[in-house]
């Protein structure tokens, strides 16, 4: 009787200890997030001013802004999305519509998942070998291609998942009234999966807008304003990298401010993207 009671006590104690550890783990995780965001806000906000958005990156020891870096990031992100999205959507369409049960789809899905988490610096090396070395110089277009390659797996994955959620009855209804398959895909499946596909594109933008490693040796960096796609171009992440590791206080301050801008952009994009699909799930 007493052994049973003490066993009960020890089991309850063990349960209490383990559950307390889990709560502590969750607290550590949340505290870490709070610490990072807190430091980012504290250090980043100190440098926010209008000049950040209106002036070029300064030479060491001078005041200035991040205008050319912000511009470069936006340009390369847009080109990356424009190049990568159609390829990703089409590949996802094949996997969910024409080739849903084909062997090719299984292989592509597997390879795509690997590309999705492949180190982005490897993609940078690939584009360096593919474009920078044959062209003989670093260029914004090479940076944009590297970003496009990072966009593709994200868009493929979400497009396939979202098209798979479209009920088959909808497709059959389209086919029954005599629409060919591509019309069914375009006018029925795409329309039903639109918000999901848009979510995927937003997540892809969020992912590439903070990417540094693939730009280091494709777009390189540029101290000055440049809108020439065939020349090196500044970008926010690479500028942050360069400025943060420099010994100059003005540069380090700009790096923090740039980091704050990127983080807020990325967080806003991913919260917006989630709210797009989240609404639908709740219905």
């Amino acid at each position, binding site marked *: 009787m007493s052994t049973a009671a003490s066993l009960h006590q020890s089991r309850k104690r063990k349960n209490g200890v383990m559950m307390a550890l889990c709560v502590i783990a969750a607290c550590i995780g949340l505290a870490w997030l709070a610490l990072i965001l807190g430091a980012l806000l504290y250090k980043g906000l100190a440098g926010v001013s209008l000049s950040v958005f209106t002036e070029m990156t300064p030479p060491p020891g001078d005041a200035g802004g991040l205008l050319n870096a912000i511009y470069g990031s936006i340009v390369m992100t847009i080109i990356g999305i424009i190049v990568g999205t159609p390829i990703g959507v*089409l590949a996802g369409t094949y996997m969910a519509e024409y080739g849903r049960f084909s062997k090719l789809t299984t292989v592509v899905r597997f390879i795509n998942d690997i590309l999705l988490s492949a180190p982005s610096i490897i993609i940078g090396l690939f584009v360096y070998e593919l474009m920078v070395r044959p062209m003989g110089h670093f260029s914004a277009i090479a940076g944009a291609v590297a970003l496009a390659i990072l966009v593709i797996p994200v868009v493929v994955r979400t497009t396939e998942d979202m098209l798979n959620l479209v009920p088959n009855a909808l497709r059959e209804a389209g086919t029954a009234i005599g629409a060919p398959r591509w019309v069914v895909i375009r006018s029925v499946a795409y329309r039903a999966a639109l918000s999901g596909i848009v979510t995927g594109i937003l997540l892809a933008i969020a992912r590439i807008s903070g990417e540094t490693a693939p730009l280091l040796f494709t777009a390189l960096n540029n101290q000055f304003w440049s809108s020439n796609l065939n020349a090196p171009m500044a970008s926010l992440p690479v500028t942050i990298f360069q400025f943060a590791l420099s010994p100059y206080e003005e540069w380090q301050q700009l790096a923090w401010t740039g980091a704050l801008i990127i983080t807020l952009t990325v967080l806003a994009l991913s919260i917006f993207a989630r709210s797009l699909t989240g609404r639908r799930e709740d219905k």
Partner: protein
Amino acid sequence: MSAVQEALPAVRSSRDATVRRFALTDAIFHATTRAAAILVLVLLGGVAISLFAGSWQALSTFGFSFLTSESWNPVTEKFGALAPIYGTIITSAIAILIAVPLGIGIAIFLTELCPRPLRRPIGMAVELLAGIPSIIYGIWGLFVLAPFLQTTVQPFIISVFHGIPGLNSLFAGPPYGIGLLTSAMILAIMILPFITSITKDVFDTVPSVLKESAYGIGCTTWEVTRRVVIPYTRIGIMGGVMLALGRALGETMAVTFVIGNAHRISTSLFAPATTISATIANEFTEAVGDLYTSSLVALGLILFVITFLILAIARYMLMRIDARTGA
């Protein structure tokens, strides 16, 4: 009557033309989507081929000794990958050791303990942590975590362990702040959300009947988790851990900030070191000479092969748990 009969061939031929046009456009669209899908395969193949071609010079010059040599000397052009490989593996291993218990703990908290209204916000916060670009972790590590470790944690640990053989060489040397342990901690923060969200997802696949029957015979929450949930989801958790390991091995920017970029193998966890990706990021644009560049690409090839294998195993494991829940 006759007018209808006269019109029939024209109607038929125009219908046939429409059907033919539909068939043609459909075939074109089919081929386009197929080509896009194949392009994904071509991309990965292209990555492998270009890395192999780019590293050929280094691999043919140094042969197998590239993998076993510790020297990294741009002046004499003697390159070996051992130090970066060592740094990559050690930092990732420590990161996994830190992040796996934490991640599983958070997942248990979210699935078993957390009050319902808080579940979604906390789960979302953890996922947002995954979306923060790695350069942010890097800058935070360099300016906030490293000075903190340098001034408080590391001197304390060194003073505690300096008399204990074995441990004193593990925690030896002046406290730089940056180094293997700092990098591992930053990596741990970065992979924590991946481990948490995958573990939470696979925990959700456990049929409630299994859990309820365990609760029904009087098991505590911990016993249900330890004896039912974790054994049932073992493959999925392993897959998530491998996926996180793949991320950690290839992570570049966060590590580059805090690793110290020193090409040597040191037993001390406080010593500056380097990883494969940090070496490439730091030195690639400054590399002069084809052999130097080629050696850096060869490092990239090694990283590619390692992460490819790890990620392939991870996906295989996750696919197996998907197949089970689908059946």
